[in-house]
């Protein structure tokens, strides 16, 4: 990464790469400015250390909560806040969190974003009161477990079974690739309570310190600062009161998350792409080969133009999708294809930016190097490219 003084003289920056949005108001600009300071002060200086350590220190959750990051969009009665917040604040949050090129840090800090919403949407009052304030204050963490060793795309066929025995369920099975699985206190777990297919799935809140739960850490390509686990449930007794929503109607609860998650992932992926271009453009204007600046070789200039072309088009679509969601639509075709568009753009930019940096792109401590290792988790997690396209095609009536 070019140092700050170098960056100040650059005209191709993270900010200049974003097409101006007609949807941004003063409140969005103020939000971005404050998040920028927060990230620059509390997160960016530590990303390499946290990546190498494989964890975000616990106290950072508290700092993020005090700043308002963890509670944004959640009801005030549980310590969150919603007033004046719209979809574009969410887009900006994902973008600014992606800027330091540390998806693992975001994944660790924000995993409640997939674990908590089902509880708030369809959980009991007691459950909300017991869990939400602890999570939103940064004290406790909640994860979401859908994917299993036998597969993640085909959610309706999940195997983990919860058998009713008196006032308890007994849970047997395993969950795979669970973000925050090693460190979270609670987990929203999709289980089979009924017959085969989507109609037999329920959501169960499982405290991960219950007897019979074991967890194994998984080492992975990127996102090091966020722990990922395989969870095993061996005769785990869970009170019936932990059922989230209605028995055998959990599938809808799982689906609730997805649209917001996809908009967030698209925002983050496109912002990561901008970070790649910023670093590559700075490098291309400094580095000299064959007697001239890299940027003066047409092949390199065109790489930069091609990256900007994709980022501009995709981000304009992102803004339009966010605007539609903000206005109450659920444009499933657009949201699923936008996610694909965003992760393909990220993949393209991570590749081309790496080529521009050359060997330096392969060295740890570079923002591009970290981002390169995050391409696949964006393209596969939260609905893989293949599944997104298939969903869109079905919705299109193909």
């Amino acid at each position, binding site marked *: 990464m070019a140092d700050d003084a170098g*960056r*100040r*003289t*650059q*005209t191709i920056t993270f*900010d200049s790469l974003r097409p101006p949005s007609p949807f941004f108001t*003063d*409140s969005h*600009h*103020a*939000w971005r*400015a*404050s*998040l920028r*300071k*927060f990230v620059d*002060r509390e997160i960016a200086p530590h990303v390499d250390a946290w990546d190498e350590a494989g964890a975000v220190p616990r106290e950072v959750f508290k700092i993020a909560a*005090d*700043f*308002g*990051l963890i*509670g*944004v969009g959640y009801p005030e009665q549980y310590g969150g*806040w919603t*007033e*004046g*917040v719209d979809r574009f604040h969410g887009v900006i949050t994902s973008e600014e969190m992606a800027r330091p090129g540390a998806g693992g840090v975001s994944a660790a800090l924000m995993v409640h974003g997939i674990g908590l919403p089902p509880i708030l949407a369809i959980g009991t009052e007691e459950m909300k009161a017991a869990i939400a304030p602890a999570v939103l204050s940064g004290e406790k963490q909640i994860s979401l477990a859908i994917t299993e060793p036998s597969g993640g795309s085909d959610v309706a066929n999940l195997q983990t079974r919860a058998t009713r025995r008196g006032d308890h369920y007994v849970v047997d099975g395993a969950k795979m690739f669970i973000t925050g699985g090693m460190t979270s206190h609670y987990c929203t777990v999709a289980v089979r309570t009924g017959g085969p297919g989507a109609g037999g799935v329920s959501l169960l809140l499982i405290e991960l310190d219950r007897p019979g739960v074991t967890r194994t850490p998984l080492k992975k390509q990127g996102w090091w600062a966020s722990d990922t686990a395989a969870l095993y449930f061996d005769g785990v007794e869970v009170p019936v009161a932990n059922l989230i929503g209605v028995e055998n109607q959990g599938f809808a609860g799982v689906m609730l998350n997805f649209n917001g998650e996809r908009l967030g992932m698209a925002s983050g992926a496109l912002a990561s792409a901008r970070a790649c271009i910023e670093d590559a453009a700075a490098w291309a204007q400094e580095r000299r080969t064959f007697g001239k600046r890299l940027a003066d070789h047409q092949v390199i200039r065109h790489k930069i133009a091609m990256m900007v072309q994709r980022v501009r088009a995709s981000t304009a679509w992102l803004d339009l999708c966010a605007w539609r969601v903000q206005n109450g639509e659920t444009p499933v075709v657009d949201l699923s294809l936008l996610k694909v568009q965003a992760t393909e753009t990220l993949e393209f930019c991570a590749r081309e930016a790496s080529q521009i940096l050359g060997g330096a792109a392969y060295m740890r401590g570079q923002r591009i190097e970290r981002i390169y290792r995050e391409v696949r988790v964006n393209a596969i997690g939260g609905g893989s490219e293949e599944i997104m396209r298939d969903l869109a095609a079905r919705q299109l009536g193909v």
Partner: protein
Amino acid sequence: MKVLVPVKRVLDYNLKVKVKSDQSGVDLSNLKMAMNPFCEIAVEEAVRLKEKGVVTEIVAVSIGPEQAQETIRTALAMGADRGILVKVDGDVEPLAVAKILKGIVEAESPQLVILGKQAIDDDANQTGQMLAALLGWPQGTFAFKIDVASDKVTVTREVDGGLQTVALNLPAIVTTDLRLNEPRYASLPNIMKAKKKPIDVKAAADYGVDTAPRLKVLKVTEPPKRQGGVKVKTVAELVDKLKNEAGVL
């Protein structure tokens, strides 16, 4: 105690400034604007005094275009209580700013005015001093540390070669230097709450001030481009260059 904090809207300090092609000034079109960093330090200091219980009310003032409201909102999100926008389009020179501030001081009767020592756009470093002169108040400029006790403010100042401490009787003017504090970032909920805090909108005429510029800018030019360095092979060559090219020996 009431504190008045003037805040100026300037080009974001991260951005590279470009001179307009007609050399009449710098090009600010479509560029990100932000609160002058020294003003941010002033707001932070006022908020800290409020948190200590010394200050009861913080009024943030900006003199500038409609969009200077955003700058006031930033101050409100950091912890100021209310704002005053004196709407003026075009450049306002330090003396006009100081005269308007004098009018506001007379209307608001603060015990303390904390200003940035200078704004990073024109780097004038005059407004605080002029305001002190116009009001006949004591001034503690380039503050490194501020202590307020009942009717006095003790200001440790950054001066060439060290620190100087002055004790001023209140009411007084203080201008902030870079090392006084590290301004907070406004929490996200506070940004939203700031939207509800009141901002009064005034005109320069309300204070009987004519803001027509007294100075005329003849020409604005880019600083000379830095030339690449050269490597010398021998000490003799170095001495020769220092003597005959640089002319420093």
